[in-house]
């Protein structure tokens, strides 16, 4: 047959740099452009704002420390959302899972604080992982076994988690000597070491959980692309029927991916509470779980992309506070606008620029090869 003559070459392969660098960059640019317009509307200069933002995020060592501290949270939640995405699941519940993880960390730091630090750290980490994972397990189980839509259940679980946290802080863990709904401070022997304890840099909240986040990123890469468990998760995410055909249990992997996801989200508690706040407070999750969605989307569910996206959002958080300080009409909510726009362009509107960019690349590539040939 003339099988060989059938054209396969036609859909020219789009190289990685277009997919993983150019397109996210253009989406980011679009988001920044709209943000710039908003800044113009409220009567400030977008150019100055951008300068302040960048300086505020990277301009001096202290800023870098803060940026990386925020980045740490975004790596945790970005990885959390990404592992669920790989399994075809949309985990909107990272926020609630982080809250539960924080409760786990706090319980260890409050009630097992007689243990030495080298024991408290793994113990608290395990608690964070278990609490976060347990909070993800229920929606996962309901999705896997009873078909309840995980998007809705995880949304509901965020609210339930918030109620639990409030209840614990108001009724149970509240510091008897304090007024506000906060636990007592953890004793110093349970605190995570800061970066400035080891290296010469100004005092910032950056602590060793940043390193832990990087280690987890490497582990994430290995798990997803280089183990049979990651393979199974991806098969389930791409095609559940094929998974059943191959003897891969969708429900088992849905639960596995979500449990990993919840554990990863739970680690926010390590960085925030054990690392910085040193007590359990309300709203310490600060929207990191939601922004994790943006991080995973921008990072295209790959640890390197996630790191870069997390760095971007970390810079936005840190630079944003500087922005609110420096510019007259901008306050820190402006950063939330930028975040939302990034989610919009790199997530919901991802198909807006992509076909055009790919077509442009194809035209460019074909003329190049034509000239070369």
């Amino acid at each position: 047959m003339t099988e060989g003559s059938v054209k396969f070459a036609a859909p020219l392969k789009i190289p990685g740099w277009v997919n993983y660098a150019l397109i996210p960059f253009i989406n980011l640019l679009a988001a920044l452009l709209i943000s710039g317009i908003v800044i113009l509307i409220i009567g400030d200069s977008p150019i100055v704002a951008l300068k302040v933002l960048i300086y505020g995020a990277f301009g001096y060592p202290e800023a870098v420390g803060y940026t990386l501290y925020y980045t740490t949270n975004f790596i945790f939640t970005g990885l959390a959302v990404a592992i669920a995405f790989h399994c075809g699941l949309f985990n909107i519940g990272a926020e609630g899972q982080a809250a539960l993880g924080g409760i786990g960390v706090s319980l260890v730091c409050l009630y097992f604080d007689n243990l030495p630090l080298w024991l408290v750290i793994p113990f608290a980490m395990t608690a964070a992982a278990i609490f976060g994972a347990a909070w993800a397990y229920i929606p996962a189980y309901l999705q896997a076994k009873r078909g309840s839509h995980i998007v809705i259940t995880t949304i509901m679980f965020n609210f339930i988690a918030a109620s639990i946290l409030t209840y614990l802080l108001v009724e149970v863990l509240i510091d008897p000597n304090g007024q506000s709904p906060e636990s007592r401070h953890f004793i110093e022997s349970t605190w995570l070491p800061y970066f400035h304890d080891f290296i010469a840099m100004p005092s910032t909240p950056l602590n060793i959980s940043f390193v832990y986040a990087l280690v987890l990123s490497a582990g994430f890469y290995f798990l997803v692309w280089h183990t049979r468990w990651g393979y199974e998760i991806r098969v389930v995410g791409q095609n559940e029927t094929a998974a059943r055909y191959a003897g891969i249990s969708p429900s088992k992997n849905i639960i596995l991916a979500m449990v990993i996801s919840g554990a990863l989200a739970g680690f926010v508690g390590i960085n925030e509470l054990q690392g910085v706040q040193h007590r359990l407070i309300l709203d310490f999750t600060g929207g990191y779980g939601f922004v994790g969605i943006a991080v995973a989307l921008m990072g295209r569910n790959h640890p390197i992309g996630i790191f870069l996206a997390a760095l971007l959002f970390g810079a936005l958080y840190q630079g944003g506070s500087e922005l609110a300080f420096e510019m007259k009409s901008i306050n820190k909510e402006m950063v939330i606008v930028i975040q939302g726009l990034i989610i919009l362009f790199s997530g919901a509107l991802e198909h807006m620029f992509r076909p055009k960019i790919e077509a442009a690349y194809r035209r460019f590539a074909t003329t190049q090869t034509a000239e070369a040939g």
Partner: protein
Amino acid sequence: METFHIIILLLDATFRVATPLVLAALAGMFSERAGVVDIGLEGKMLGAAFAAAAVAAVSGSAWVGLGAGILASIALSLLHAYACVTHKGNQVVSGMAINIVVAGLTPTLGYAWFSMGGQTPHLGGDARFKSITLPFAEAVHDIPVIGYIYAELISNHNIIVYLAAAAVPICAWILYKTRFGLRVRAVGENPHAVDTAGISVDWMRYKALMVTGFLCGIAGSYLSTAHGAGFIRDMTAGKGYLALAALIFGKWRPVPTLFACLLFAFTDAVQARLQGVELPIVGVIPVQFIQALPYILTVLLLAGFVGKANPPKSIGEPYIKER
């Protein structure tokens, strides 16, 4: 008489809390029955609340404010449509993005325009919807039970509360008895059937989403110009998600959705009353538990422990002509 009085007060509070829920849930119904997931109800309400309060403050008219609130909400709905219908984007992500953008944008603009820490000026006079005393309310007030209920519970709400009450039968009629409703339901179940019947799927979904925007706009305006007197940052406080939960709890049907909204609103009213009150047998019920109750109930429903929810079949899937 005391218990009766308390019940009336509870129900009165229930109506006030339920109003935005009913409107937003009905809004969500049009979107979701047309096959578009809408977790952006929250953002649309918040946007409308801000626009309504800002414009009412400037114009001095609650009605102009309401118009602005509706327009703002429709604009956000169209953005959702542009992302999910035109560009086949992920509907959950789009809703999420809208929620976040609005959560940031409203205080940003509020801060810039009114310099009141992200709030709008306090609304008074005609800039706010006032309670309406229904005819004869005064006269029948002293007639036991019925007259009292009429005067205390039915009368004395602002116009939007009555609007919400009327919206339920109207929306039910639109959904089940009109051409538009038939097409909305069809496009959410099987868009291919709609397409081959010569109706544009995309345009249908755009229209449904505009209705969503319209209703959500009223819901949001209610918060800032009727229930409250001005915009406060994050004033929706999860009501959009609660409305979504009510919609699911009501199985995407108007009347059951109304009852879900009333139930959720009632728990809210009860919770305010029960704070610290010792009940027989159970003792003090933590407020947080009652606050979480609607969400717990919805999860139980979704899990199939309380009835079974059958969502519109093609919900969440962008329509792509197969080749």
